């Protein structure tokens, strides 16, 4: 019976190609608009480290005081060098890292090759285990490198390929920003998105699709005076100049992450933070009461508004557009079904039940939905591909098409069309055979 109804539906759809095409276009355009914006929303709400995110926390310490707080009483988003070092040395968490982004020029050893810039991070060795960085070769630098500022570097496999071709890069020298480093590890593909771990990087466009090129020890970066590529946030009265002043200032520029496996650990760490701030208050460094935060990774992303308001609004508008399309599809289906009252009358008179009529017309609607879904797939692909031109560039680079999105597009399209067909089908099934069978 199903195949018979498919045949009937196909026949009927061919009979009014204009009506059919109009329905398919409406359904396809409607579903594509909501799918494109859904893909953007999905990309932005993604968990960058699903297996670990619940254990990762970003501590914030208020070293600026009430006078420099915004309207919401939030402490600064980054730490000063003083506080970052204090937290590192306390070792109160299972693992901890201070981290900041830096851009350096790389001069290849081969004098015939042009120098280029690379982007990476200064961090401590705990970072690799905390963020589950995979290695193809070697591993993280030693604890001694962390303590004494050794010139070790971990590079991405892409950079390794670029510099050394296919040859083994472990132990080789790389000249970065005028200093020589020794390669101790080569990372496999690793680029969690959004790039949560360093302030500034989170909202960066170019990071998507471009994994970090290198990691160097935090202590080394401080010794070599590598500047944070996103700059420092200082209070308005900061008058210092130069590296030494910066290290002793209340300027905030270092991101900090700790791994706290249990809720109890997190509570203890928060208490430790408050204790630390209270101690600073006591010695007169902060003349105000502690105002700290300890946000988990997902809370942190939420707090930074990684999902922009524009994306949410765009999604809602797209849903609205799909609704408009759907309401009009109801009208078109109604017109299409009611035009076939004669046919319905004959089928009913020959013994078809109302249920059979329902099945027939719902199958026909399902076919329209599937066709609309196929068009929607094409439009969604086209939209995601060309997204950079009308969406925020960073969002566009995050968004990608996968099987689940394709499946969801088809499913949404068919289900939406079936819902739209409920009323027209009901009307069709109400047709009285007697009325239609009068002589013509």
């Amino acid at each position, binding site marked *: 019976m199903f195949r018979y109804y498919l045949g009937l539906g196909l026949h009927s759809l061919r009979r009014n190609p204009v009506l059919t095409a109009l329905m398919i276009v409406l359904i396809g355009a409607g579903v594509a608009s909501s799918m494109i914006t859904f893909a953007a929303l999905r990309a932005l709400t993604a968990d960058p480290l699903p297996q670990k995110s619940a254990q990762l926390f970003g501590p914030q310490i208020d070293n600026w005081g009430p006078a420099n707080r915004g309207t919401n009483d939030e402490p600064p988003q980054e730490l000063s060098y003083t506080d970052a070092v204090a937290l590192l040395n306390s070792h109160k968490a299972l693992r901890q890292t201070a981290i900041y982004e830096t851009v350096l020029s790389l001069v290849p050893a081969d004098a015939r090759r042009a120098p280029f810039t690379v982007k990476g991070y200064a961090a401590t060795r705990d970072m690799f285990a905390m963020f589950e960085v995979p290695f193809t070769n070697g591993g993280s630098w030693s604890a001694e490198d962390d303590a004494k500022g050794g010139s070790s570097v971990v590079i991405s496999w892409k950079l390794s390929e670029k510099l050394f071709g296919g040859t083994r890069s472990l132990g080789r020298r790389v000249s970065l920003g005028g200093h020589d480093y020794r390669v101790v590890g080569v990372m496999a593909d690793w680029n969690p998105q959004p790039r949560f771990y360093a302030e500034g990087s989170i909202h960066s466009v170019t990071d998507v699709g471009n994994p970090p090129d290198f990691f160097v020890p935090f202590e080394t970066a401080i010794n070599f005076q590598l500047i944070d590529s996103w700059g420092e946030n200082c209070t308005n009265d900061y008058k210092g100049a130069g590296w030494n002043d910066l290290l002793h200032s209340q300027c905030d520029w270092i991101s900090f992450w700790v791994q706290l496996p249990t809720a109890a650990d997190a509570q203890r760490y928060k208490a430790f933070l408050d204790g630390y701030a209270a101690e600073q208050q006591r010695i007169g460094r902060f003349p105000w009461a502690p105002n700290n935060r300890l946000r988990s990774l997902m809370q942190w992303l939420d707090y930074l508004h990684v999902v922009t308001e524009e994306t949410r609004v765009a999604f809602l508008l797209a849903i609205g557009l799909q609704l408009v399309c759907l309401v009009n599809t109801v*009208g*078109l289906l*109604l017109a299409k079904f*009611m035009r076939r009252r004669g046919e319905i009358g004959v089928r009913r008179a020959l013994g078809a039940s109302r249920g059979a009529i329902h099945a027939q017309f719902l199958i026909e609607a399902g076919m329209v939905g599937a066709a609309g879904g196929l068009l929607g797939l094409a439009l969604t692909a086209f939209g995601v591909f*060309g997204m950079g031109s009308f969406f925020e560039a960073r969002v566009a680079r995050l968004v990608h098409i996968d099987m689940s999105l394709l499946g969801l597009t088809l499913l949404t399209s068919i289900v939406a069309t079936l819902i739209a067909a409920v009323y027209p089908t009901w009307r069709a099934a109400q047709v009285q055979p007697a009325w239609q069978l009068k002589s013509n």
Partner: protein
Amino acid sequence: MQIRPILAALKQHRGATALIVLQIALTLGIVCNALFIIQQRLEHMARPTGIDEANLAVVHNQWIGNFTKAQLNAMVLSDLAVLRQLPGVVDAYADYTYPAVGPWAQLSSVRYTRDQPKKTTYAEPYYADEHTLSTLGLKLIAGRNFRSDDISATSDSDNATPPVIIITQDLAERLYHDQSAVGRAIYIGDTPSTIIGVIKHLQVPAIGTHSFAYCSILLPLRSGNFNNSGSYYLMRAKPNQLDDVVHAAPAALLSLNRMRVFDGEAAAQPYSVLRAIGYASDRGMAFLLSMICGVLLAATVGGIVGLSSFWVSQRQKQIGIRRAIGATRGDILRYFQTENLLIVSFGIVLGMLLAFALNLTLMKFYELPRLPMYYLPIGALLLWILGQLAVLGPALRAAAVPPVVATRSV
């Protein structure tokens, strides 16, 4: 005309009528505003820069290492000498940004006197030298060009304003109306700058500038490391040799001095590429809004076709009776056309209010000007025509209903 019976019939279908009226209103409101925004974006994209865009290439150069202002100046000068000697290069100069879609701009307040409390106008400068006019293809309409001894090296910590400047005609007219600007001094910093020349057209570097888009100033300055991020070399190629220049320039610079990095994937880029990137969001917005308009209009047409087809099939019997008692096919056709005209007109009245309200909202949240009145009749006409076209098919089918239908008893 038969308006009263139409209204009476519509009263029987209040829900459906209200829905379609509402949709037409929504469509008109959104389409008017979208068309207006599209038109604004297209206008923005079409603004002439005033330069020879087709033959211009740009290199972003950053030095590796720390150098003094004088060292940087010498390095930039020898770079420029190499670039000018490349076959296919007409001329070249170094700037901190590039025209119209530049990465940097410095907002300057232009004043007649040092102590003038409020600016006369805003302007944005370029760093130029004696080669700038021929590199960009700018036309000097009064005064003289810079000489090489006018040009001084500058750095991020310098904030002295140069004693001589060249300005655009647009800025000259704002400052001195129809009088000559050459020889007069204006203030853009703490010291006066004498206008030595006036050029015809040159758009300011910042893309989003509207009210002073052609108020450019050429400062005789050269910086090798503006804002700690290098500087831009602009080169004008001979006709049809732009690609050669784009390929040759980075290699020539590297062989002169390797300790530098170029920006991004391509070391040198044709200006047209930079311009396309700069205007990508305008183009994207225009495209997206056209798509939304298209979908909304298609949805409205679909709604009208569906609803009127449905009504035609519902009213077969009444149509038959009317035909049997003397109505012509034309009468039936006109009945449905008039009905559609009425519905669309209701929608348009409501839609105009909506368009106006939407425009006010957009004006409040975005810097959108007031919607010009002529968009409303244009939008209305569009919907009337679309409505009539959409109803034509169902109406013709209605007109084809034979009078004999009336005789089928129920």
